[in-house]
């Protein structure tokens, strides 16, 4: 009976979504505006005219400004030459700097939000691990920030963004003009950037610094995905080595191809495939790169002792604190408002007012993802599983990350619902069919749904975003198959093939070498005892009484 009720409620939800889509599609176009009166001829502004402008007097300002009407006037425009007084150059310079300043502040603040996501990842992963590994799991999440940042500062940023110039939002980024290209089929194929190592020389620059900070926190998000999959059995020293190389090479390479002026980004301009590979905020660049590396690690490092019985059936190994898991999911959802809207790299001009729609798309897809996963688990297992519902929220957010800039709210909800169900299905497939042990479900949340997010751009992009009139050098906006451009879907699928074929292989080879030279896995004794004391020297919860391992059925 319960299942019938649940099925009926799902059908109702789907009908509501479909109805919303129909209403959206049938909304009549606004009536044509009446013909405007002929515009007056423009009047040239001269230095002389500007000199005559005056703001409130000091005496007026001294009275205070509770209404905010006398603060921010002509008095606040800096004068370049006191002898000449205020000139047009001064005014235009102030306008330009205001635009760039707005974009700087927006990008920096959203970058700070993304940085805080590390805290969300840390407690989600620690909560889903057993208490005996809490210190170790937390430390991996804590130090992945530092290890990744060091690698990215040394070389990763240069590889990814060393040839990204120009960028009109952040003042041009002219020092980042060194893309290494090869010529193939008569076109340039960008492979990696060359400027920006250590942020020295010309890249000691205010605009480049903004770009570095924002891209660095994205890279760290990708790195921290892997620690969730390999938790509870990964040697700390191997984690440091692996994360360093991922931050230095794996992530930046794909990041360059998609965002830094590389070959994927230019598939539209060079080969007429839509607007080239379009990944607005990184379903592919961040999440699928992390997910593919996590998949490679899960294969190499193997499952935890006790995860599978001798007949291959999986045992459930519950985490120790579902409260912090769901709290962490909320922190991540909050941080995602930096991740997606911040990826405009600006709030002023160039179509950047789209940030409001991107924020709404983000929250809607997250909601839809949690519903999709919750209903799936409820129907299949009779209970709305908490950790899977949290993962569903994250799956919806991961999936909307690439399309958030290009789709409408109805598309976002559809993408999110599919992501939630896909997450649950993928967890089952990876555990039961592939016999892999993914402690937090990161391969499904970030890998599977990262790929789904990339594909969904090629399906649902509605051609309305219009960033600066073009995307990756192709006029017009990104448009998916459902709105008439099949070429965009092909570009997205090439991105998916690159993630599966190149990023996975590169990560696999890198970590297989580390396995050969150093070894990824702790000893069975250490694993059974818990990694906290042998690896870190202290328990995460020294006053807890930990249960012995005997409870696991084999």
């Amino acid at each position, binding site marked *: 009976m319960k299942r019938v009720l649940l099925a009926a409620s799902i059908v109702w939800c789907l009908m509501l979504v479909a109805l919303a889509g129909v209403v959206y599609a049938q909304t009549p176009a606004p009536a044509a505006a009446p013909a405007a009166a002929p515009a007056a001829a423009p009047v040239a502004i001269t230095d002389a005219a500007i000199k005559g402008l005056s703001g409130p007097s000091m005496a007026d300002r001294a009275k205070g400004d509770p209404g905010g009407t006398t603060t921010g006037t002509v008095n606040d425009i800096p004068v370049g030459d006191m002898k000449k007084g205020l000139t047009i150059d001064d005014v235009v310079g102030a306008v330009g700097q205001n635009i760039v300043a707005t974009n700087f502040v927006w990008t920096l603040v959203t970058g700070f939000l993304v940085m805080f996501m590390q805290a969300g990842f840390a407690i989600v992963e620690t909560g889903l691990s057993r208490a005996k590994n809490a210190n170790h799991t937390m430390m991996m999440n804590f130090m992945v920030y530092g290890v990744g940042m060091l690698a990215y500062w040394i070389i990763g940023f240069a590889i990814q963004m060393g040839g990204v110039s120009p960028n009109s939002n952040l003042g041009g980024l002219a020092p980042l003009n060194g893309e290494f290209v090869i010529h193939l089929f008569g076109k340039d194929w960008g492979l990696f950037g060359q400027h920006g190592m250590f942020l020295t020389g010309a890249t000691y620059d205010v605009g480049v610094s903004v770009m570095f900070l924002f891209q660095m926190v994205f890279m760290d998000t990708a790195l921290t995905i892997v620690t969730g999959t390999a938790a509870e059995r990964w040697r700390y020293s191997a984690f440091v080595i692996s994360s360093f190389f991922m931050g230095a090479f794996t992530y930046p390479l794909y990041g360059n191809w998609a965002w830094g002026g590389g070959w994927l980004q230019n598939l539209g301009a060079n080969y007429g495939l839509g607007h080239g590979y379009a990944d607005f905020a990184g379903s592919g660049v961040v999440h699928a790169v992390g997910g593919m590396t996590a998949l490679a690690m899960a*294969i190499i490092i*193997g499952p935890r002792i006790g995860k599978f019985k001798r007949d291959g059936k999986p045992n459930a190994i519950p985490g120790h604190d579902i409260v912090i898991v769901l709290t962490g999911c909320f922190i991540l959802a909050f941080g995602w408002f930096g991740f997606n809207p911040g990826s405009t790299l600006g709030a002023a001009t160039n179509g950047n007012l789209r940030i409001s729609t991107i924020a709404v798309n983000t929250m809607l897809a997250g909601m839809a993802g949690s519903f999709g996963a919750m209903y799936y688990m409820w129907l299949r297992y009779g209970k709305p599983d908490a950790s899977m519902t949290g993962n569903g929220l994250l799956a919806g957010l991961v999936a909307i990350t690439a399309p958030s800039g290009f789709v409408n709210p109805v598309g976002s909800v559809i993408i999110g619902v599919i992501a939630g169900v896909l997450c649950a299905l993928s967890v089952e497939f990876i555990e039961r069919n592939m016999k892999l042990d993914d402690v937090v479900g990161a391969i499904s949340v970030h890998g599977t749904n990262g790929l789904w997010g990339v594909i969904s751009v090629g399906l649902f992009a509605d051609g309305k975003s219009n960033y600066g009139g073009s995307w990756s050098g192709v006029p017009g906006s990104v448009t998916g198959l459902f709105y008439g451009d099949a070429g965009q879907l*092909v570009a997205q699928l090439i991105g998916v093939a690159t993630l599966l*074929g190149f990023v996975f292989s590169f990560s*696999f080879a890198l970590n*297989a070498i580390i396995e050969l030279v150093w070894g990824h896995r702790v000893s069975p004794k250490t694993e059974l005892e818990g990694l906290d004391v042998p690896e870190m020297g202290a328990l995460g919860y020294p006053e807890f009484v930990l249960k012995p391992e005997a409870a696991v059925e084999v």
Partner: protein
Amino acid sequence: MDVCLQGGTMALVGLVVTLAGFALSALSVGLTSSTGGRLGMVLVGLVMCLFGIIGLINPAYQKNAVWKK
């Protein structure tokens, strides 16, 4: 030891197949100008990638899985 060697070879073949799938997809843009033709090649490349990972590399490592010991 023999099982390890067989597993190693299988994983290596899987890696080659996976990379070949990527190469086919990426180079499809230069091999034909038709969108349908490119789509077909990319889909074949994707299947190769998935087969390399799920059908070859993972089974190679599962031969010596800890739960089988």
